[in-house]
């Protein structure tokens, strides 16, 4: 019989991280929606001045990190459910990690370029 190997002890950590990031994203989105309802940002210069605030940039960036982390756990869950060939699963997971890291750096670059220029 083929031995089934399980026991990678990161199940709880990821499950908890997914829930914590979900809560953080919800709070951020609600705050942002509330702010936009009170004082709408109609055009590019308005958005630019909002992101000129360093704290606002940091908040946006933390939201995006939460989003990418959440997405990583969710996409890995899907791959674990449906992709059963270990090699293909590893390759897809590496692809997802590299993309999400790229998005992280890219979003930082966009946020800080917007704020400083």
């Amino acid at each position, binding site marked *: 019989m083929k031995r*089934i190997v*399980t*026991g*990678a*002890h*990161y*199940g*709880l*950590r*990821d*499950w*908890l991280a997914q829930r914590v990031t979900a809560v953080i994203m919800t709070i951020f989105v609600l705050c942002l929606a509330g702010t936009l309802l009170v004082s709408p940002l109609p055009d590019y210069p308005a958005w630019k001045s909002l992101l000129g605030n360093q704290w606002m940039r940091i908040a946006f960036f933390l939201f995006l990190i939460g989003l990418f982390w959440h997405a990583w756990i969710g996409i890995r*869950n899907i791959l*674990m*459910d*449906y992709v*059963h060939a270990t090699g293909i699963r590893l390759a897809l997971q590496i692809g997802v990690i590299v993309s999400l890291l790229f998005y992280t750096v890219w979003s930082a670059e966009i946020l800080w370029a917007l704020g400083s220029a």
Partner: protein
Amino acid sequence: MRFSIYRFDPDKDDRPYMQDYDIVPEPADRMLLDALIRIKSVDDSLSLRRSCREGVCGSDGMNINGRNGLACITPLVGLREPVELRPLPGLPVIRDLIVDMTQFFRQYHSIKPYLINNDPPPETERLQSPADRAALDGLYECILCACCSTACPSFWWNPDKFVGPAGLLQAYRFLADSRDQATAERLDNLEDPYRLFRCHSIMNCVDACPKGLNPTGAIGKIKDMMVRRTV
């Protein structure tokens, strides 16, 4: 009454097919199992498991009009016709409505479904307070019919690695037992991205359980115990 039943005999058939049966139920035929026994008296080649015929042994789990349930406690009244009967989904079919439960029981055994207590046995029983005993209500009643696990997509995709709702309900039954001393080992055994955390709480198991139990709730409580010991 018209029935459409999944038939497959690996010795004779290349592929499964659905066979129609028309029977007239007698007044005493109340449950689906009564009708199946009547069909079997007409066509004795139809194979199914059954034993206690009162929802206790868990032998006659099958897919009834698209939902898993026990034939012996499913009333004939109210079943949409033709009544479509298939074997429990996701497990290998041995013949007709009989499935190979090896994988299901392998997962059940993997959670050590017995009390682990290293203290010397007392002269009488290991006693529990009424409150400790009440903590096992809704857990010990499971009859291992496999209706829940075979309704669970996570168990369909990873039956070799995911314990499944039935096994996890039993895992919590021993985690919740005041007489058990292996809590840490039991949690270690489940703290795995596959064994416990393939559950995405879609609650098909709760919907399917013929005993009205709540495996999703038990799984939530296992996660709760893990969070409390980690955070």
